[in-house]
């Protein structure tokens, strides 16, 4: 059991990493980015392309791909999300949904349906592990991913609270009109926030490719895991995202121990339980929730 718990915690690091950008975009820009998973897969494909075509290690490739992801995030915000946000809260969601479809199909057209992985390009790191007492094997890559997630979340927290740009981003997220009146260029702040979110997505995509396989349509699954981790941890809370990722991963690993098909079901169950508890304790109560859903249905 202790082995499952340790593996679950380490896997939670990856989920926190992939949920981080989603949570950041939601908390700062109030946008639920349904293209999140597809953008992570795009990053993985970019690293795979650099590695297979130019023999650039995925870790070195990050020096090229992460700045590119930042530019993509900046451009997405400036030319797509900002404009769609003028049409109401629903339009950016539909826009990112459409974007996900475009990315998936462009990747399919360019790379075909074959499953790929970055594992062959990182030597033995993909399977190397340390043996702990009690025959517990801890993967080196899993530890690297977990430590990266903690550093990234901590760094983002420090950036938002200790720097002028971070304060500007928080101010814009709280009240963009007033932010402008105190001298904050809200459009610039949001574009930078989108660029930061995309860098985290790029990093998550890299680790996705190193620890598992991916194909052009793998984005939807990654989006689901990111969404579940973000909701479990409390959407918008950076450290909550880490907790959410760990809870999701623990539920999955424990679910897998109970039943071979319990991996996904365990995660979904944990997500639904947390979601139900959150809604129930939101002040509406069970009857209120039922009335709300009935009212919306009619």
């Amino acid at each position, binding site marked *: 059991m202790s082995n499952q718990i340790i593996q679950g915690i380490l896997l939670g690091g990856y989920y926190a990493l992939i949920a981080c950008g989603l949570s950041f975009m939601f908390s700062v820009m109030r946008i639920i980015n349904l293209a999140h998973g597809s953008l992570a897969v795009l990053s993985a494909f970019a690293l795979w392309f650099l590695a297979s075509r130019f023999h650039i290690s995925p870790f070195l490739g990050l020096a090229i791909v992460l700045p590119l992801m930042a530019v993509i995030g900046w451009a997405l915000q400036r030319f797509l999300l900002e404009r769609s946000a003028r049409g109401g809260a629903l339009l950016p969601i539909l826009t990112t949904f459409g974007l996900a479809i475009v990315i998936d199909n462009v990747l399919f057209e360019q790379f075909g349906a074959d499953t790929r992985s970055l594992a062959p390009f990182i030597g033995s790191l993909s399977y190397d592990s340390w043996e702990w007492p009690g025959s517990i094997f801890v993967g080196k890559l899993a530890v690297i991913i977990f430590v990266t997630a903690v550093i990234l979340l901590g760094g983002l927290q420090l950036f938002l609270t200790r720097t002028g740009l971070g304060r500007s981003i928080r*101010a814009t997220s709280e*009240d963009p009109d007033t932010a402008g*009146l105190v001298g904050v260029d809200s459009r610039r702040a949001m574009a930078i926030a989108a660029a930061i979110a995309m860098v985290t997505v790029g990093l998550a995509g890299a680790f996705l490719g190193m620890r598992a396989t991916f194909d052009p349509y793998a984005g939807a699954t990654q989006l689901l895991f990111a969404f579940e981790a973000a909701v479990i941890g409390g959407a918008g809370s950076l450290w909550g995202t880490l907790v959410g990722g760990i809870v999701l991963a623990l539920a999955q690993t424990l679910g897998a121990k109970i039943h071979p098909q319990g991996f996904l079901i365990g995660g979904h169950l944990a997500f639904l339980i947390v979601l139900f508890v959150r809604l129930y304790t939101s002040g509406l109560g069970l009857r209120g929730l039922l009335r709300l859903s009935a009212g919306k249905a009619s």
Partner: protein
Amino acid sequence: MSLLSIEDLVIRHGLLQAVRGVSFGVERGETLALVGANGAGKTTLLRAIAGAHQAAAGRVLFDGTDLSGVPSHERVRRGIALVPEGRRLFVQMTVEENLLLGRTAGRPGDWSVDRVLDTFPNLKPRRHAKAGHLSGGEQQATAIGRALMSNPDLLLLDEVSLGLSPLVVDRVYASLQGLMNSGTTIILVEQDLNRALSVSSKVMCMLEGRIALAGDSSSVSRDEVTKAYFGLHRKNAGGMPA
């Protein structure tokens, strides 16, 4: 040359014309009190100067430069700071963080967090408190301090006494008096006519989007302003183009 010149300014909210062809000027070091009933267009005028509303017609000239199309954050950089009605603090941030946001525009000047805390001593023990947890007076002081942190040439104060007890209003105005005496140019929207006349060098009364009365505070009586306030008297008492 006036620090601020408003020329035939028209502001619309949809079909409603909130400001109707207003013209006036403000010299450096002046304190202009803007009075008028609710809906007269005072807040809209102030927000238009700050760049929160775009003009349908007319111009806002600041230091001789036309501000048409200049966004609000750029106007702060040029030296215009607004203390908005209702304070509009970032309630999830601390007092210090709100004040530091005022420095985003990067204008050089003497205002610092410590100087604001010296000017508003009631904020000192609340420096690290979230703005949402402050009293009304503390929030108002933070909002004024945040605007001062941008080292403005022109300070726009929109109903700083709104929702505050008389004692707290006295404290806020006592703090502002130092600013007015130091030569900071201020446009002040105020409902309290006595206070408006006592702290300002010029007064302007708005009615239904137009200037109903404008003149030196020393030469305009409270009775004249009251009549203009209710649309019973239209007069330019001299000293200002109207």
